[in-house]
């Protein structure tokens, strides 16, 4: 497949205006687990021009139930494994990746070039840390976060919410692993697609939910 064929196909599907806006946009994804791996692939398929993938972890057998990795990826860095997955569906996307643990100390510097950051961590304290650090430390960043997607309850309670102009959150807000609920592909996927759709809407100028 030639790159020009791919570009023509995307343009035909999305229209030139949407294609142009997405190809010229950049999104950072913090955490490449059940949320992040799904968000990244959805945005790549939609034609976002550049993704920044951040995760310190390697692919584990326990990830296969909900994350976009394969058996052959076990042991690889998530940044490297996801890079290959994205490349396999989008030949023109630019991908930057960092295998690093995001902390209060490095978050501002790490994400300073990205207007939209997707918070895709799994631990509640890490989610709160990233939101607090980015929204107090950088006036230009908008964060699309997630909270509450564990278990196999109805998918209809998972929503996108706008907390402020720079803070969006997806999920049902209550179904956490603390309640003993397991994480399963469907609800994690629904939540990830809410995040990806919220990002897409922001990139295309739609600020309301």
């Amino acid at each position, binding site marked *: 497949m030639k790159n020009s064929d791919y570009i023509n196909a995307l343009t035909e599907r999305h229209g030139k205006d949407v294609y142009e806006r997405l190809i010229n946009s950049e999104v950072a994804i913090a955490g490449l687990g059940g949320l992040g791996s799904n968000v990244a692939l959805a945005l790549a398929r939609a034609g976002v021009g550049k993704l920044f993938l951040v995760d310190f972890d390697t692919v584990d057998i326990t990830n296969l139930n909900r994350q976009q990795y394969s058996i052959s990826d076990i042991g690889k860095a998530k940044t490297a494994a996801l890079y290959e997955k994205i490349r396999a569906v989008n030949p023109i996307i630019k991908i930057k990746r960092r295998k690093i643990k995001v902390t209060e100390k490095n978050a501002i510097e790490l994400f300073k070039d990205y207007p939209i950051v997707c918070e895709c961590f799994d631990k509640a304290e890490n989610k709160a840390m990233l939101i607090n650090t980015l929204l107090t430390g950088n006036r230009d960043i908008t964060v699309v976060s997630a909270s509450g997607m564990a278990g196999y309850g109805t998918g209809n309670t998972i929503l996108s919410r706008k907390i402020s102009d720079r803070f969006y*959150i997806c999920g049902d807000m209550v179904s956490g692993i603390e309640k003993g609920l397991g994480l399963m592909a469907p609800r994690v996927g629904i939540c990830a697609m809410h995040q990806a759709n919220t990002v897409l809407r922001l990139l295309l100028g739609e600020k309301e939910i």
Partner: protein
Amino acid sequence: MAKINGKENSTAKGKTIGSYLDENGYKKTYIAIEVNGSILSKTEYDSYIINDEDIIEIVNFVGGG
């Protein structure tokens, strides 16, 4: 009356955010707070006093991803 997470609250006025969080069982490491559209730094939790007109959103994160 201050509005907290969408509901009018008649007793919060005059309290610090920190004491409101303690009284309501919030764990400070799991939350982010917006006051009137901007995030409140954790260092301000114990000094920020809730005003009558404040619109406050306390986001309580749960684990999973």
